[in-house]
């Protein structure tokens, strides 16, 4: 199996970010909220990326922040996929009023921009990580629902699904054994995209002050904390922005490759 160069680059960057997030405790040279120097010190041997607006080591903040950002985004993506795809499949398989109820409910949720609804909910709820994950997961689940329902509706009319119904199979078998394996490739590709949207979403929320709360670090928060520095030519706010952009691009490259590899419905092993 040959991995195309673009996918390889994507894999390396994505892998590096995830590893850094998992082993943040070992990699970060200083504590997350430890004040170790002056305000906005330039890059030096002790502080590779300099220090931030109150004298914390920026590299350490970036690594700890990456952990929070990636954890929240991953958890929200998993939640949205589990919820969205199962509900989507049920809507497709059951049809009738179940489908109507779920689909119209989702339409209703989608008619409000997700950032607005997130801001409204988060402004009245205590902003903790579980609440953030829940809100983001639920809002994203609507998108996953639409996709998985559309994919499953196509599969549900296939003769092999009818054959399974005629055999007397339960709905769980039909959803998990007949439909899911055949719906997986578009869903996996979508998963990469949704993960990126989650990273952007959590960063936006933190930047607006309704996401991850200080002193806990996250990329959007680091931008917010250091944004005044830009006026004085301090690049501290741009570093997390670069991290967000490179993570987004590399995950996209991987998702593209996965989609390309799995689109043929020939036992899923097409080249």
């Amino acid at each position: 199996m040959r991995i195309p160069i673009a996918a390889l680059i994507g894999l390396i960057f994505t892998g590096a970010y995830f590893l850094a997030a998992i082993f943040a405790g070992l990699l970060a040279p200083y504590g997350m909220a430890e004040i170790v120097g002056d305000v906005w010190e330039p890059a030096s041997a002790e502080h590779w990326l300099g220090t931030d607006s109150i004298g914390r080591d920026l590299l350490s903040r970036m690594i700890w922040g990456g952990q929070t950002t990636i954890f929240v985004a991953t958890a929200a993506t998993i939640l949205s996929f589990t919820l969205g795809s199962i509900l989507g499949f049920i809507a497709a398989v059951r049809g009738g009023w179940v489908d109507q109820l779920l689909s119209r409910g989702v339409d209703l949720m989608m008619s409000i921009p997700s950032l607005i609804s997130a801001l409204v909910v988060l402004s009245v709820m205590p902003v903790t990580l579980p609440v953030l994950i829940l809100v983001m997961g639920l809002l994203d689940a609507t998108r996953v629902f639409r996709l998985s329902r559309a994919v499953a509706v196509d599969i549900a009319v296939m003769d092999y699904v009818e054959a399974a119904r005629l055999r007397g199979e339960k709905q769980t078998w039909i959803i998990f054994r007949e439909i899911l394996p055949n719906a997986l490739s578009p869903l996996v590709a979508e998963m990469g995209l949704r993960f990126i949207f989650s990273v952007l979403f959590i960063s936006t929320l933190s930047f607006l002050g309704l996401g991850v709360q200080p002193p806990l670090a996250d990329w959007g928060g680091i931008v917010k904390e250091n944004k005044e520095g830009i006026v004085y030519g301090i690049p501290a706010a741009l570093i997390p922005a670069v991290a967000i952009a490179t993570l987004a691009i590399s995950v996209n490259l991987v998702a593209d490759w996965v989609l390309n590899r799995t689109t043929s419905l020939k036992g899923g092993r097409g080249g």
Partner: protein
Amino acid sequence: MADNLLTITGLKIEATAYPPGEPPKEITLVHGVSLELEKGKVLGLIGESGAGKSTIGLSSMAYGRGGVRLTAGTVTLNGRDIRLAAPGALRALRGREVTYVAQSAAAAFNPAKRLMEQVIETSLAHGLMGKAEAEARAVMLFGKLGLPNPETIGRRYPHQVSGGQLQRVMTAMALCPKPDLVVFDEPTTALDVTTQIEVLAAIKEAIRDTGVAALYITHDLAVVAQVADHIMVLRQGRMVEYGTTAQIIETPQEAYTQALVSVRSIDHVEKPEAPSVLSVAHVTARYRGTTFDVLKNVTVDLPAGQTLAVVGESGSGKSTLARVITGLLPAAQGKITFAGRSLSPALAQRTKDDLRELQMIYQMADVAMNPRQTVGTIIGRPLEFYFGLTGAAKRQRVQELLDQIEMGKGYIDRYPAELSGGQKQRVCIARALAAKPKLIICDEVTSALDPLVADGILKLLLALQAQENVAYLFITHDLATVRAIADRIAVMYRGEVVRYGTKTDVLSPPFDDYTDLLLSSVPEMELGWLEQVIASRRMVAAGN
């Protein structure tokens, strides 16, 4: 030969294949085929799928579909070799000297444009004639092809005419620019027999009147025998036999051609009366949200271990009957008795035994099997589900079933994509058989297969019926298949059973009008059959 319109010599066609899980490789589709076509003659290209007949047909305009490359040989059209002609030269030639009629007219027309626009498009694009002249010619061709209201039919959209009419409009489109050669690629394959005969007659007449030469591609020897002057039999990209139509039909030389000519000659003597396993009594059904009865008061009986063939054209309700029996579409009225017990109309209320004893095989074997499951899983699931077999016992039973369908070892771990069309259908048969059913509903199971492969499937089904005493409800539009397999026949027309009885009774006169039309429309492998049928129908229509 100066008179030759098209001469192909030593044509070799190659393509790159991408087999799953393997590196791409070069394959040869056509191995050095040569042919000649004189002006005004019709050459039939016949063979099963993968024989290269369409590929050769399209090479007459130096076109390779889907990355196919014409790598060697010559294609001489009107005296010049066009195999390596420049794109500009080919553009000038396609649609002007050579035109093409595709199999699926419904997919070949742009649904957003009126028919007339599309019919005269090529003539206008090549600047062959003015708009008024082109339209006049199109109307003339519509009339010649027997389309109703030739003056106004061009104003309709593709969805406003029937499939057979659309196919004739496409023929008019091909003939409109006054080409020298028309390539017909299975023009009647997707049509019902009763429609096919009309289209076939129209095409034949149009070819004769316009003096155009034609390549007629089909897999049905009986069809090509009606229109072609010469026939070339192809197999796996090689020529098997070439001769005049009379010679190929009457004295075929090669074993493969003989097999094609004698296909569907299974002798099946109907079985004696027996107690019925399935009786359908006065069943009426309609789809949800509609007020139209798709089935009207249908009553049929199927004796245990025998075959009831349900025949009719598309839209006659034969597949709906299958859906009603399986419970996918609960009947509005009527009663279905199966294996001595009354069957609940809806699938959800049926017992596991009801489901097990009533199995189904589909037309398209590719989509009847989950592409992500291996053959072992596909056949094994009913064993596990109905009989609780697992592990080695299940695997052994799957292997037994594979042996029964004559597939043997080495297939159990394959995916459907790694099987041929005939093998796929065999696996579907094995899956049905795994449930030890009393009745298998076969919905057009051989329609998508090549004649020789279909023959193999029919023989297998008959052998299995003898072994397992299973009954078949055999839905088909193909009367040759019916003759080969049926004990009883029900002829359906517009949701009603118009004729029902034992095979001999149904197929012997006196006929009702519809059965007569249906039976006389089945192409027979003899010269001049088409003319005879058309002539006799005209006499009837004239009031004799």
